[in-house]
């Protein structure tokens, strides 16, 4: 366990090593990279949601600069095909370029190449498309039923996977109080600052394909390129340079990551594709769309008996590589219980195919929806029981003495004090003061409300869970390569990818902790398949747990080799040595790393015969033992003011009490939480990818798609519990995604608390002014009509 003595080690507030280049505009993204004779690509995309008999007419004079699905199939390029092992999962091909059938607006149809992007867009405009439009499947609930327009002709219906999770359903009979509600989280786009970006060329000297891509998963992309293009692994080199945010959008394969490299090989020139914002908002409107019909049961004292639910997840038209299209529906089905104890469970969850872009695991993956449904149901139950929602939560959260705790569906919570996080959030936000303020009323006529959201996040997806699902990328032992450099510094290679998380700093801190190095003496290299160990990449809040663990374990291996050389130089026994402050210390003194390096690299004649020829470079790995996931958790609490005339919601105060285990860098932890929380505010109040009845996207620019901004959160007040995980190196737990999970729940509960006198419950995100006013008017109307009938 870290003792906090290392200046740059675990727990140190180290400024980001990345700051210098990012803050000075020296980052290098794919769009910053130009190659000689490079061509720019623009993509012809489907203008309709659903059609067959697609025919494409190339623009004039476009020979050798225009490519369609026919060209791909003539060259035997294999489509993406991901089918999970879950019984009944319906499989389909995901063609890189649409082949006869169109399945969503924005689906790629043809590639146009020109010297400039503008000229390539001219070719797009000159391309002819004909097709026979079909009625689209747009509504995940109606279109899950037989008779709906079928997204895939050879399927019986649009249900991709129908999962049922039932435990001890007899116990539902014991319930005294039940609340039933419908909840909806609408579709949104992920919107990293940088969209998708690919630059590919065949390197004749290296005899390999070099692909630069804004990817979270360079090694998995290499697998996919080999599988689809029939290349061998040593013929493909993938580089993810600086990546401007990913949030899960870039941990799946984009079709462009296959067809742009293929096109580059055809034209024998570098080809670059940079996704623009409109392309992103149309083709990447692919996250969050869930619907829940929930009944929460409790006994008369408010102890939860269990939950029944029917869940639909709009999973779009295709299964993406490597995570497929059932990740969200199965996670929603299995873990709707959240952090609560219960003894009965009956949940059906359906992943439904629709004529929309394929679903991707956006930051939080399913849990924002799960948390929204569960936490709003808890508040509804509290109202039903006349209880303070916070107290009802405290009563039902898994208590600390029950840890480790096996959930009703077989999950294992490793550690933590869930009720304490709630109590601390309640204390910080000062619940009694808010209740008193509500009593007094507001001078400006607004209504104040307070809401809580508790969640758990399974971090660092474990091998067995991914294997059970049969995903195309199953994380195993994560590896790190650690090399003592000739000057005594360290260079570390990892297969995870840093796209804004500050991992070049935090991963370096792990080595600093182990060896007592200065942070400048440690360089972390990543994002390049040629220089790093294989990895499934960065997603699922896994990088610190897995790559951090791997660096720690590798430092153990390397440390012993360094100590062996040190023991020789100090003329003592290995067991008498230890490493601290970048030096090997023995009874007679110490030898700095620089001296060890000098001997190994420059004066090997001074080495003993017994030296380990493996040298001062090691690769080793880590996986939690047993193969379980560390669970992070938090309580978010929000105070909002609702303007009942305008329906607008302002967040007045926001508190987070969280536990991500041992904190590696407090500033980075806070930054991750704040950024995630603001994305959660986007889900709660702003972001929505709207469609019309024909499946046309209505939110294709930022004029029509509202992003949250810096003014939409007050200064967040963060509080940290630290319960080290027993499963990991240093007790760290994953952290990256959690901030985005509970804001929709906490904010919606606060809005409903504010409007409780109106008898209003919002149950859908984003909570737009129109939705709030409509809810108020509806409540008023139903009150009026109930007065009339009574």
């Amino acid at each position, binding site marked *: 366990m870290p003792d906090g003595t290392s200046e740059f080690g675990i727990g140190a507030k180290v400024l980001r090593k990345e700051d210098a280049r990012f803050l000075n505009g020296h980052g290098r993204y794919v769009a910053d990279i130009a190659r000689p004779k490079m061509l720019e690509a623009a993509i012809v995309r489907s203008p309709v949601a659903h059609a067959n008999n697609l025919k494409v007419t190339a623009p004039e004079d476009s020979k050798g600069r225009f490519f369609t699905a026919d060209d791909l199939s003539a060259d035997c390029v294999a489509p993406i095909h991901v089918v999970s092992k879950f019984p009944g999962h319906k499989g389909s091909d995901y063609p890189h370029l649409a082949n006869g059938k169109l399945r969503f607006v924005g689906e790629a149809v043809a590639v146009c190449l020109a010297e400039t992007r503008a000229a390539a*867009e001219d070719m797009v405009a000159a391309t002819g498309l004909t097709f026979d439009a079909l009625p689209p499947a747009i509504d995940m609930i109606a279109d899950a039923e037989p008779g709906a327009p079928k997204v895939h002709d050879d399927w019986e219906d649009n249900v991709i996977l129908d999962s049922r999770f039932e435990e001890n359903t007899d116990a539902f009979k014991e319930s005294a109080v039940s609340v039933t509600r419908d909840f909806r989280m609408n579709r949104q786009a992920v919107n990293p600052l940088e969209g998708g970006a690919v630059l590919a060329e065949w390197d004749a000297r290296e005899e390999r394909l070099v692909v630069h891509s804004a990817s979270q998963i360079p090694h998995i992309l290499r697998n996919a390129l080999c599988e689809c293009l029939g290349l061998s692994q040593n013929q493909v080199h993938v580089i993810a340079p600086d990546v401007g945010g990913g949030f899960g959008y870039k941990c799946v394969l984009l079709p462009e990551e296959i067809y742009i490299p293929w096109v580059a090989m055809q034209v024998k020139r570098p080809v670059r594709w940079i996704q623009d914002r409109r392309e992103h908002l149309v083709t990447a409107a692919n996250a969050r769309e869930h619907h829940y019909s929930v009944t929460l049961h409790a006994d008369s004292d408010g102890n939860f008996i269990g939950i029944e639910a029917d869940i639909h997840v709009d999973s779009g038209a295709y299964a993406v590589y490597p995570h497929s299209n059932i990740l969200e529906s199965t996670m929603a089905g299995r873990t709707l219980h959240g952090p609560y104890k219960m003894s009965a469970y009956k949940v059906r969850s359906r992943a439904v195919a629709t004529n929309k872009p394929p679903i991707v695991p956006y930051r939080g993956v399913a849990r924002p929806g799960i948390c929204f449904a569960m936490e709003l149901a808890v508040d509804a139950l509290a109202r039903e029981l006349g209880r303070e929602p916070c107290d009802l939560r405290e009563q039902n959260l898994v208590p600390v003495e029950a840890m480790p705790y096996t959930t009703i569906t077989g999950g294992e919570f490793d550690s933590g004090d869930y009720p304490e996080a709630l109590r601390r959030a309640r204390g910080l936000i000062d619940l009694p003061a808010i209740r008193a303020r509500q009593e007094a009323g507001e001078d400006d006529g607004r209504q104040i409300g307070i809401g809580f959201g508790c969640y758990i996040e399974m971090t660092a997806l474990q091998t067995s869970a991914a294997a059970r699902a049969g995903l195309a990328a199953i994380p195993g032992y994560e590896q790190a390569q650690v090399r003592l450099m000739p000057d005594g510094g360290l260079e570390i290679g990892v297969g995870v990818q840093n796209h804004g998380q500050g991992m070049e700093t935090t991963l370096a801190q792990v080595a600093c902790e182990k060896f007592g190095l200065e942070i400048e003496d440690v360089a972390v290299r990543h994002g390049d398949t040629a220089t790093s160990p294989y990895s499934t990449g960065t997603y699922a809040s896994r990088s610190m747990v897995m790559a951090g663990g791997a660096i720690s374990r590798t430092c153990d291996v390397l440390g012993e080799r360094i100590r062996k050389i040190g023991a020789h130089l100090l003329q003592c026994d290995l067991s008498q040595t230890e490493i601290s402050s970048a030096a090997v210390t023995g009874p007679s003194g110490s030898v700095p790393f620089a001296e060890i390096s000098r001997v190994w690299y420059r004066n090997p004649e001074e080495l003993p015969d017994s030296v380990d020829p493996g040298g001062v470079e090691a690769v080793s790995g880590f996986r939690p033992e047993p193969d379980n996931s560390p669970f992070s958790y938090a309580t978010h609490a929000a105070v909002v003011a609702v303007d009942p*005339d305008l329906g607008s919601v302002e967040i007045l105060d926001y508190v987070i009490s969280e536990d991500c285990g041992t904190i590696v860098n407090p500033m980075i932890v806070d930054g991750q939480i704040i950024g995630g929380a603001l994305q959660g505010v986007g889900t709660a109040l702003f972001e929505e990818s709207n469609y019309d009845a024909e499946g046309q996207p209505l939110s294709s*620019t930022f004029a029509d798609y*509202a992003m949250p*901004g810096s003014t939409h959160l007050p200064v967040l007040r963060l509080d940290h519990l630290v319960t080290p995980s027993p499963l990991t190196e240093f007790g760290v737990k994953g952290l990256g995604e959690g901030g985005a999970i509970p804001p929709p729940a906490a904010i919606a509960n606060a809005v409903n608390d504010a409007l409780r006198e109106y008898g209003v419950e919002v149950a859908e995100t984003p909570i737009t002014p*129109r939705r709030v006013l409509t809810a108020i008017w509806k409540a008023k109307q139903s009150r009026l009509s109930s007065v009339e009938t009574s």
Partner: protein
Amino acid sequence: MKPAIFEHERMSSIDDVVQALANADGEVRVLGGGQSIGPMMNLRLAQPDKVLDLSRVEGLDGISEAGDRLSIGARVTHARIEDGEVPGTTGAYMQFVASGISYRSVRNRGTIGGSVAHADPAADWPTALLALGGEVKVVGSGGEKSIPLDGFQVGPFTTGLGWDEVLIGFDLPALGPNTKWGYYKVNRKPGEFADAIGAVIIGNEARAVCGATESAPFRVFDIEEKLSGGATELSVADAREILSGHDAGFDDYELQIHAVALSRAIGRAFA
């Protein structure tokens, strides 16, 4: 999102601009700050063959006061107005409006002339200036003329500006120190285009404008009458009642937020 090919010409005088418009072969557009036409060209919603850049044309930057009139050049940016360059009560009102337009980088480039010529229903100046009253100054093949702001905008993105005319500035009333004004913009985020605007000015006469509609902003005479009659407040319910008499195509929600905007604009005027 790259524009279709177009020609760009930096103009040196208004006469050249007018001549170029008159002799236009194909679609020719004037380029002000480029903050509306730029995005439209990038999205290829506008594909002019040629743009005539006003940035070097002299005589469009002025702000001057003469008696009870204010003259403001077409190329005056939102930022200059935000920074208080327009004097007096009119200036205070316009400063308030300008500071709510988008964010500073857009305000640095976007111009008041471009905004009124563009006539986006959700934009601020068309509504704000209609509440002020005054005239639009225009030069065309037929020479210079003035068009009243009342009726200048006739629909969404449509004004009384002829195809060969350039907007060179505005002739606006310099409001007296006792004039009351109130402006209320309903939007989702600071600096976002408006979902609804209420603008009122109560001086020698009372003017009340309902803006950010589906079409052009319009004066609400019933409200003006109440204000002229001494009313210092207007309930949302009354504003709703009055607005529902206008054929603005509002649904219930839109009616509500426009009513709130007007009610609160009046509230601000008398605060």
